[in-house]
């Protein structure tokens, strides 16, 4: 009986992230439009776009290989699994044992690998530009992410998300410099990873400045729909990750009842709205960086993560 219940919660979690991802994207778009006094597209527009793309015919370049056709599904699958692993409204899910931070980084890394490869497959110049820029960003974003994970793991004694979240909820955490640094670094990585301003502009029409969009320029129809959905999922994943690690309040503990789950869900939605609002506000008030400033930005994230880990060592006397 408990197994069935756990399965049901895990299934809810998986469908929830999938169902909410386009809404978060739509919410941010709407908010950004309202912030600059525009009407903006309806909240549900991303769902409609996905439906429209699903119905459309796929136009493939003559020289597109099997990789180009397979990559969207691989990217989607990897991102979905990663997003489903992050505790959103409840910890101690059925798959919690596998909800490891390093596993999530690895899943996202493979998704990125296939996207970059597929972008170069057709051989257009924009695909190449996008891939090379994405890889430049990734070479710094991934180590920064690993450093953040290290500092959290050192604190919580585990890289498992449920354990870290439980640890964060425990009373003896307090305010720690390391945590602050890890939070800032994680936000910076999240911005870069999700192709948001100031690293990339998700709404741009300028081919030459694109990073993520340049890689998916050649995709159409259901392939594009799947990639777009994966991009939304990734954004949701990072927001959930930040929420789970740094704002774990409201998370339903393992084996809790319906009320706790409902509170968990409500607080999760609140966190999403808060994060979306902050992101929209931030994006409206800042200009995009020059491409070669991105390494400096991510370098700062890497240093913050590194310093956080180091401080932890020093304060604990871990070097002795």
């Amino acid at each position, binding site marked *: 009986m408990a197994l069935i219940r756990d399965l049901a919660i895990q299934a809810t979690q998986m469908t929830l992230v999938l169902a909410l991802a386009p809404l978060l994207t739509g919410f941010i778009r709407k908010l*950004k439009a309202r912030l600059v*006094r525009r009407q903006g597209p309806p909240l549900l527009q991303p769902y409609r776009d996905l439906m429209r793309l699903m119905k459309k015919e796929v136009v493939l370049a003559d020289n597109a290989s099997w990789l180009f056709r397979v990559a969207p599904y691989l990217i989607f699958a990897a991102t979905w699994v990663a997003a489903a692993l992050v505790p959103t409204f409840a910890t101690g899910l059925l798959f919690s044992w596998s909800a490891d931070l390093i596993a999530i980084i690895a899943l996202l890394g493979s998704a990125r690998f296939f996207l970059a490869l597929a972008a170069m497959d057709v051989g257009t110049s924009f695909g190449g530009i996008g891939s090379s820029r994405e890889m430049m960003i990734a070479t710094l974003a991934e180590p920064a992410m690993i450093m953040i994970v290290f500092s959290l793991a050192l604190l919580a004694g585990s890289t498992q998300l449920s354990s870290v979240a439980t640890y964060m909820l425990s009373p003896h955490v307090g305010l720690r410099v390391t945590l602050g640094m890890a939070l800032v670094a994680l936000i910076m990585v999240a911005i870069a990873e999700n192709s948001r301003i100031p690293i990339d502009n998700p709404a741009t029409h300028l081919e030459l400045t694109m990073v993520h969009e340049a890689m998916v320029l050649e995709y159409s129809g259901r392939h594009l729909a799947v990639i777009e959905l994966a991009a939304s999922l990734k954004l949701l994943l990072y927001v959930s990750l930040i929420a789970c690690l740094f704002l774990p309040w409201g998370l339903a503990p393992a084996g809790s009842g319906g009320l706790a789950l409902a509170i968990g869900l409500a607080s999760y939605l609140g966190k999403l709205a808060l994060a979306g609002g902050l992101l929209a506000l931030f994006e409206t008030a800042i200009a995009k960086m020059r491409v070669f400033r991105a390494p400096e930005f991510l370098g700062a994230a890497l240093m913050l993560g590194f310093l956080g880990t180091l401080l932890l060592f020093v304060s604990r006397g871990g070097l002795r």
Partner: protein
Amino acid sequence: MTRLADLTTRGRSVRAHRPWPRTVIDAAVWRAATRRLTAGELALLGLWGEPGQVHMALLDEAAGRVAVLSLDCPDGHYPSVSAHHAPAGRLERALCDLTGLKARGAPDPRAWLDHGRWTLRHPLGAPVPAAGAAQPYVFLPAEGESLHQIAVGPVHAGTIEPGHFRFTANGETVVRLEARLGYAHRGLLARMAGADLATAARLAARASGDSTVAYGYAFARAAEAALKVEAPPRAVWLRALMAELERLANHLGDIGAICNDAAFLMMHAHCAVLREAALRANSATFGHRLMMDRIVPGGVTSDLAPDGASVLRALVGTVRERLPVLTALYDDTASLQDRTVGTGVVSTELVRRFAAGGFVGRASGRDFDTRRALRYPPYDRLEFQTPVRTEGDVNARVWIRIDEVSQSLGLVEQILERLPGGPVRRDLPAGSGEGLALVEGFRGDVLAWLRLDRGRVARAWLRDPSWFQWPLVEAAVEGDIVADFPLANKSFNCAYAGSDL
């Protein structure tokens, strides 16, 4: 004797050409003029042709004098100007495409406007049916290790005009950029030839939609010069009013658009609101948002609406109130300044050589403004400054435009205050003659030339300021990174349709 008068006296003067002289000269004087261009003593304003003759418009900046030199070329050849003076290059290529006259010794024999898809060759010369398939266009080479090409356009991801850009890059660094234009060619000049004055004026006003007032203005002034008539005083002032309103709307829109290319949404949104306010005021005052076809040879077609003056004064008040806030926002946003300062630099030397007008020239230290240099009415009686900067980067071009907005606001106020009464349009005689006019559009000096034959246009030529600005875009991004091109390009905002004709 000025440097220009010296050349114009060495040939047969054409009486019918007004207001500046046109002289038919021989090849030796043509070469002498080319040498003076190379030496930087004169500036090239235009180069165009008709069957058997090429014309070159020259400017003596110091003396504020303009002259046209014409060379007969019975064998279909003339000595190349571009062999010694690069700014003439694309004009020579376009001239060859349109009339079939070839520049002897030209360094670049490739076609410019004619992409091999026209049904006729040399439509303005001796037309012959086009034969054979289009030849592939060979882009200028760049050699070196690990260089790759990036082809962009002519269809772009955004809704903008068509143009092809071929980058040769080393990773992100641009080694060479070459633009290929001509995709918006509509055969304007061929349609103007033989048309009556009213039709030709309508065509001229459609050369470039964002500069429709400037083109209408230049064409009307050229036609009036050819016919030796003057527009009624009220029309003269209303034209300047429209020109300033057009400048205002375009500058406001573009300041925001440049910021938008750096993904700074706030500036874009606020500037778009102001531009919209300006366009609505135009519509309320002159009955058209862009004031298209409002300026015609002989005057203007619509007088100020009864409440026009108060609408425009309200607009001036609104812009004046909000502009300082926006300027401060632009100046105080570090992330934006980081993008615009030092990006897309054009040197003063290059701007002088290409005689680039408008904010492109003025941001790089070329203090040239047709309104001041040639002092056509009513600007000879108005007070305004021409802002000049020397940095030549995107930031400087933005600042020139911000400063020009303030100047235009002042001009609008002065014109409204001193607007004379009387009729706004007069009838034109069906005469003959030749006229040349230069008018300051928002991009720079728009040139219009035409020859009238008993009330009909025999020949006409329009020269957009962008002819001398496009090559500078290519120079500006050299050594910059590929991702900065859209921002640099937007800060120039050169016309595609205007130079494709």
